């Protein structure tokens, strides 16, 4: 018995020892990494003439769905094969799997693990605690000096476009990424309302522009049996809660944005304004009348595609490319009559413009490329990344390989048959994904000549024009950044608030929460700290204006 007791004691001791060993090893590791970080920051600048392209780099980035159709990694894509021939740099791409929150999850875990590749492509503008904090903690490095010395092409572009330079620099004056920049106004408008033109023609109706005209048209859709199956199964309208919240279809007519907006220098939160209640009243009525899709709160791409291609859906809020282009292409053979046309952003009165609608900034943060604190040769990496902003690099990233994916015709880079009429039957977006990066974003300046050819249908060309014209967009927030402390406080307020908001938005529209409770909703938001969040946004806006 005594021996047993001792055995027990010993085994516990051994166990503890083992744990301590494991723990000791792992904490040593982190200490080692930190030292390396500090070393990296103290580096002296090398002579630009001596810096070549790196031999190899590791590069973490999401694999876009249009690329995944044809390739396993970006190494298989035309632009990177050509780039390797030019620079001699071998790139080891690391692609997170999945999409949406899967990517967020893997990004956060990678940052937490401290095992960072040389180059990380992500939306660095909106990372938790902000880009300044990421630089301060050594996750990524400050690029101002490096860009000035080793990235002549990007440097030139930023100096020629001071407004853009303002956007890619934080309030603390840090540059943190090689940005994805939209090089032309036409590239910034790509979402809006679209409607079945053939159904309008059948009913002899004009395209709606005001809210009341919309109601008439939607009601008429509801009561017509377009697909002739004897059932009343037309869904007149689909707008998704996320779009209402972040962009504002129909909401723009009421003069506000659902989230934070800039009312002549004063930040306001749209969803606590009385106008938001009016908007909800309309939406609720449309829902009750069966005009708004009852599934609007839980829709995915597959379901949406099915509704459009089964001739059920009358109008929706969507993309020029992924909406009009995609569905016109899909329906070409099945239903030659099918026509999805863009309509003006809805307004309250005839001739008015919507206060806000989708309109991207030249720089928003998506696909920005930062260099990790663990990278050993940042100068060389900077030089490699800068290639995309040079003249030849610009052509390569936007149009691919001359003679393969495009030909110069009268000085205009024209996509070849391989892209526009792919022999393997690939849609244009997938064919582009096989060669270039400009079609979905990356560290480059997007060329307007890409979109001119990508939007091949007259409806798409019209969409860019009509959606650009019919909204003021004066109240949109510029791409501000919060500093580290603010960002921590802001996200701790907004994460619970957004959860509550998302629920209530849907419940109000579905009528599960009577609109009489709108005041309670506003009070609850205030109780959760919306006013403090507005203050933080105001401070960020003020600083942005002073940049």
């Amino acid at each position: 018995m005594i021996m047993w007791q001792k055995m027990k004691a010993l085994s516990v001791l051994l166990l503890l020892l083992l744990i301590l060993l494991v723990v000791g090893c792992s904490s040593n590791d982190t200490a080692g990494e930190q030292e390396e970080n500090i070393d990296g920051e103290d580096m002296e600048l090398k002579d630009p003439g001596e810096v070549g392209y790196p031999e190899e780099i590791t590069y973490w980035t999401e694999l876009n769905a249009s690329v995944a159709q044809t390739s396993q990694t970006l190494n298989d894509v035309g632009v990177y094969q050509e780039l390797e021939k030019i620079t001699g740099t071998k790139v080891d791409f690391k692609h997170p799997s999945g999409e949406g929150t899967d990517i967020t999850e893997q990004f956060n875990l990678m940052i937490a693990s401290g095992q960072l590749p040389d180059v990380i492509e992500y939306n660095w503008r909106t990372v938790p605690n902000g880009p300044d904090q990421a630089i301060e903690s050594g996750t990524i490095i400050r690029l101002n000096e490096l860009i000035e010395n080793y990235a002549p092409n990007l440097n030139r572009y930023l100096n020629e476009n001071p407004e853009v330079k303002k956007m890619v620099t934080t309030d603390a004056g840090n540059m943190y990424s090689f940005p994805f920049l939209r090089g032309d106004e036409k590239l910034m408008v790509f979402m809006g309302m679209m409607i079945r033109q053939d159904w309008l023609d059948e009913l002899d109706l004009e395209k709606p522009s005001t809210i009341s005209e919309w109601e008439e048209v939607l009601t008429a859709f509801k009561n017509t049996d377009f697909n002739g199956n004897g059932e009343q199964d037309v869904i007149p309208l689909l707008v998704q809660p996320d779009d209402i919240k972040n962009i504002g279809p129909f909401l723009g007519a009421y003069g506000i944005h659902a989230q934070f907006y800039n009312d002549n220098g004063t930040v306001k939160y749209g969803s606590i304004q009385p106008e938001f209640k009016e908007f909800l009243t309309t939406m609720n009525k449309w829902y009750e009348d069966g005009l708004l899709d009852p599934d609007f709160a839980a829709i995915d791409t597959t379901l949406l595609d099915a509704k459009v291609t089964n001739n059920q859906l009358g109008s929706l809020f969507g993309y020029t490319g992924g909406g009009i282009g995609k569905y016109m292409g899909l329906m070409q053979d099945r239903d030659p009559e099918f026509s999805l046309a863009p309509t003006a952003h809805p307004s309250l009165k005839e001739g008015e413009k919507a206060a806000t609608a989708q309109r991207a900034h030249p720089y928003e943060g998506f696909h920005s490329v930062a260099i990790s604190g663990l990278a050993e040769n940042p100068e060389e990496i900077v030089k490699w990344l800068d290639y995309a902003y040079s003249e030849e690099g610009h052509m390569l990233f936007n149009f691919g390989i001359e003679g393969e994916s495009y030909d110069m015709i009268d000085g205009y880079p024209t996509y070849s048959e391989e892209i526009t009429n792919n022999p393997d039957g690939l849609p244009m977006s997938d064919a582009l994904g096989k060669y270039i990066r400009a079609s979905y974003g990356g560290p480059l300046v997007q060329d307007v000549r890409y979109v001119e050819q990508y939007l091949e249908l007259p409806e798409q060309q019209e969409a860019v024009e009509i959606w650009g014209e019919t909204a003021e967009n004066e109240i949109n927030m510029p791409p501000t950044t919060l500093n580290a402390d603010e960002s921590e406080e802001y996200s701790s307020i907004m994460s619970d608030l957004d959860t509550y908001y998302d629920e209530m938005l849907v419940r109000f529209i579905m009528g599960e929460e009577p609109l009489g409770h709108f005041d309670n909703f506003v009070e609850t938001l205030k109780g959760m700290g919306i006013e403090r969040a507005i203050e933080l946004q105001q401070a960020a806006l003020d600083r942005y204006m002073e940049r």
Partner: protein
Amino acid sequence: MRKTKQEAPTFQANSKSSLREKMANFNEKVKKDFKRNKIIYLMVSPVVLYYIVFQYGPMYGLQIAFKDYSPVLGFLGSPWVGFDHFKEFFNSFFFWRLLKNTIILSFYSLIFAFPAGIILALLLNEVRSKMFKRTVQTVTYMPHFISLVVIVGILFDFTARDGVINDILGFLFGIEPIAFMQQAEWFRTLFIGSDIWQNVGWSSIIFLAAMSNIDTALYEAAKMDGAGRFKQMFHITLPGIMPTVVILLILLIGKFMTVGEEKILLMYNPTTYETADVIGTYVYRKGILESNFSYSAAVGLFKAIIAFTLLVIANGIARKVGDTKLW
């Protein structure tokens, strides 16, 4: 137990040299024992290693629940904040809702899903046709082997507006299609219902095994005394499997607060948060998606403490009431 208490003071009172002696003595004994039972030690080592690496090792990281953890500063370097994260959680807008949802879902699965396996086992036990019994068993435990993702996919398809369930309801009773997956009040029913469907066959296996251990002489004696099949079931079968039931119940209570978060993550959306959002899913959103690791570690620890307390209480009750217990 009593022996250690007597041993301890003498052990401490000993001088250093005799302690060393004892240690040497002890070491020798360990060595001897090790030599003799090499194979047994070898066999048990993977299990011990598993617990050290995957269960005890990570506990070291629990300290971040009391710190403001930043990956760059590491576990040791991050500053202490005491109970701040716990306070923040207790004062959070969603605290009561999360707690309520977690407890209700756990409770429902305890009172609906757990007995389902026992009932199925009892029914199967009474079946005389072997063919029929085997077929039923195979059919009911098959869904257990289907991946959860697929199960939830099937659930979405069946409960869609134009899915089978709505078609049947509409055809038989003329009910308007119900968007099951988007209505908070349906969530619990769907969650528990599909859980029973998936796992009832599997969980009945262990009870069937327990039943096969009951002495057949008891049944014969009961028959002689004129007990019908119902009486046999209530007075022989049920008491016979009771120890198994109690142990399983205690184990289940230990997992009380863990309600199958993966499945909820697959099933819920903002319209059903009202009833579907539980502590586990909240931890996932806070920790992994917003990279607020310290806060979510605190919330997770809170959950674990409740579960541990419940386990101790349940074991205590079982100990008092009968003699089946975990320890």
